[in-house]
């Protein structure tokens, strides 16, 4: 399989320069960030400076959220050497169910616009999505039906079920509080909240780095030089604060701002008011999901088992791991994430349609694969997949901005997917 490497060979990271190797930053991740930078700057030049504006980047972040959330789950699915083709259809059926729930079922008991509607609907979405995922996982793990087949069937079944919920009728509009999940004006958290979140995030980054350093020192393991830790902390905090500043640099449209001012008893000044959007709720959810999933994948026993199964299913079994139950949970988690994404896309559209999430499975899989998840199993990162989702969405948004026709957009996205995987395989071969 792999050629044995002499123990004197330098570790792979050393090949990309001693500075980077000291920082222990993954060279693949760096390559993806570089690709993203090229795409962003390229579109900015082609569009005459429209792409890299707070407004476009804010929209881009909201558009990425749904696929990015599902991509985090797809990483684990693909890592276990499986695939889930049904995520778009699950999103569709969950979207229809929660649409009907908040427009017809819940109002019958709670009345319209009840404050409990939105939280109940989110719980329902996660429960339905998670149950569908667990059921498919059971078929795959305990009945040993290939995941490709189960989820291909699922794609048809759940898409059909989405139609069945209302026999094809679109359900609209959504509950006002629920609409916050879609971003937009309702889901913009405002300047103060955004800065508070950014400050907390920076604090956590520094604490986490310090904690891990102290722990390694206590066991007498080698640690990064102090300056490297400082550089990493500065970089991470810099990214967080820049993102917060960008989100706060995009003001609410004049009409909305005026209504807000009137509602809060503020006089509308002559030149208008600059009321920042701040980070959008779906983006915050996606970031939290990304952090939680990274924690699960790297810090929890479950994540370790997922990777072990992907690396060598037989070894995992012989180690006493309950591989079937682990696999079932992976698909359950995937379904639960589809439920969260269903909330975001339904809220964003302000309507539940039975076509919601069509082709999402392909974008989700593409995001995970562009983000470095190996279809052979055993390899992948949550952060990479989310970055992959951002790359895909950037391409798409950029082309929309340039007025590229839809068929051509698809051609470009398809070609980029193939190209990205080829470049990645070249890279992997080189470091081996």
């Amino acid at each position, binding site marked *: *399989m*792999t050629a*044995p*490497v*002499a*123990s004197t060979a330098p*570790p*792979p990271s050393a090949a990309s320069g001693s500075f980077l190797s000291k920082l222990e930053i993954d060279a693949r991740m760096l390559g993806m960030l570089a690709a993203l930078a090229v795409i962003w700057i390229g579109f900015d030049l082609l569009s005459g400076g429209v792409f890299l504006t707070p407004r476009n980047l804010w929209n881009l972040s909201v558009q990425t959220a749904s696929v990015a959330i599902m991509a985090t789950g797809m990483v684990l699915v693909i890592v276990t050497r499986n695939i889930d083709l049904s995520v778009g259809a699950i999103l569709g059926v969950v979207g229809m169910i929660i649409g009907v729930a908040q427009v017809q079922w819940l109002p019958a008991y709670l009345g319209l616009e009840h404050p409990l509607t939105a939280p109940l609907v989110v719980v329902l979405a996660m429960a339905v999505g998670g149950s569908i995922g667990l059921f498919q996982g059971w078929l795959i793990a305990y009945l040993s039906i290939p995941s490709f087949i189960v989820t291909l069937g699922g794609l048809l079944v759940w898409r059909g079920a989405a139609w069945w919920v209302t026999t094809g009728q679109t359900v609209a509009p959504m509950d006002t509080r629920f609409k916050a999940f879609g971003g937009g004006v309702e889901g913009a958290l405002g300047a103060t909240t955004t800065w508070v979140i950014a400050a907390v995030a920076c604090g956590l980054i520094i604490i986490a780095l310090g904690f891990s350093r102290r*722990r*390694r020192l*206590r*066991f007498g*393991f080698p640690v990064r030089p102090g300056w490297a830790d400082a550089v990493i902390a500065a970089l991470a905090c810099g990214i967080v604060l820049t993102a917060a500043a960008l989100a706060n640099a995009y003001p609410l449209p004049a009409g909305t701002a005026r209504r807000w001012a009137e509602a809060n008893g503020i006089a509308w000044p002559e030149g208008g008011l600059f009321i920042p959007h701040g980070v959008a709720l779906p983006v915050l959810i996606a970031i939290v999901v990304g952090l939680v999933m990274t*924690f699960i994948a790297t*810090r*929890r*026993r479950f994540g*370790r*088992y997922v*990777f*072990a199964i*992907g*690396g*060598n299913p*037989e*070894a*995992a*079994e*012989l*180690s*006493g*791991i309950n591989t079937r139950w682990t696999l079932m949970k992976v698909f359950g988690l995937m379904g639960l994430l589809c439920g969260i994404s269903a909330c975001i896309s339904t809220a964003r559209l302000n309507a539940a349609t039975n076509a919601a999430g069509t082709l999402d499975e392909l974008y989700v899989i593409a995001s995970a694969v562009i983000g470095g998840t190996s279809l052979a199993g*055993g*390899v992948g990162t949550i952060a990479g997949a989310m970055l992959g989702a951002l790359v895909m969405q950037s391409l798409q948004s950029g082309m929309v901005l340039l007025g590229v026709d839809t068929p051509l957009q698809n051609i470009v996205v398809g070609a980029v997917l193939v190209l990205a995987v080829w470049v990645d395989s070249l890279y992997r071969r080189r470091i081996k």
Partner: protein
Amino acid sequence: MPTNGTTPLVEMRNISIAFGGIKAVDGVSVDLRPGEVVGLLGHNGAGKSTLIKILSGAYKPDAGEIYVNGEHADISTPRDAKRYGIETIYQTLALADNIDAAGNIFLGREVLTPYGTLDDATMEAETRKVMARLNPHFRRFKEPVKALSGGQRQSVAIARAIYFNARVLIMDEPTAALGPAETQQVADLVLQLKKEGIGIFLISHDIHDVFGLADRVSVMKNGKLVGSANVQDVTQDEVLGMIILGKCPAGATPGPGAS
């Protein structure tokens, strides 16, 4: 059967298992005492690996019983076997290639922090200790084991088996993929573990390997036990006859497979 009075550490009685009508193991009985090395010999396909996979919990036998320290043991999963102190080093090593040495050694038996998260620091520290004993030059603790050499991978697999205080160690073709120096290392380790009172099943198709290390040999052919013998009671040629022809010499106790 030769006895030295002590209760066998492990006794497998009349074990049978069939796959699709073919009896891979047919009424085989073997036993193992503390501090003893028993060589399990036979051609490829004789049923040795299948027999020990039953002991390690990978397969469930169709018939037969397993006794640990004289008491009936119910082993139906690898986890059960490990609970009885039975550890296995598989021929394939059974390592998850994408995970580092510590992750593999503690796979399925992770050390957790009080918060329920993986305690990687403790696991790495323990790994450094056990690897210092097995392979003092081992330095690549942070890399996935696929980046390691054959010998290094072997030491990780051995470390996983002995770290958890094994009482019975099953080694399936432990030296098949190793060079002469590394083979000698494994032999030294076997003798050291034997001194610590661990019972070892040594599975091999190489008779020379086994004769140097084993106290007794059991030979299998076509899923049946040809016979068992103390190594000093038989010659290598006689054992070769057992393996190839299924002929049981005078110095050995014949089994049901003897012709």
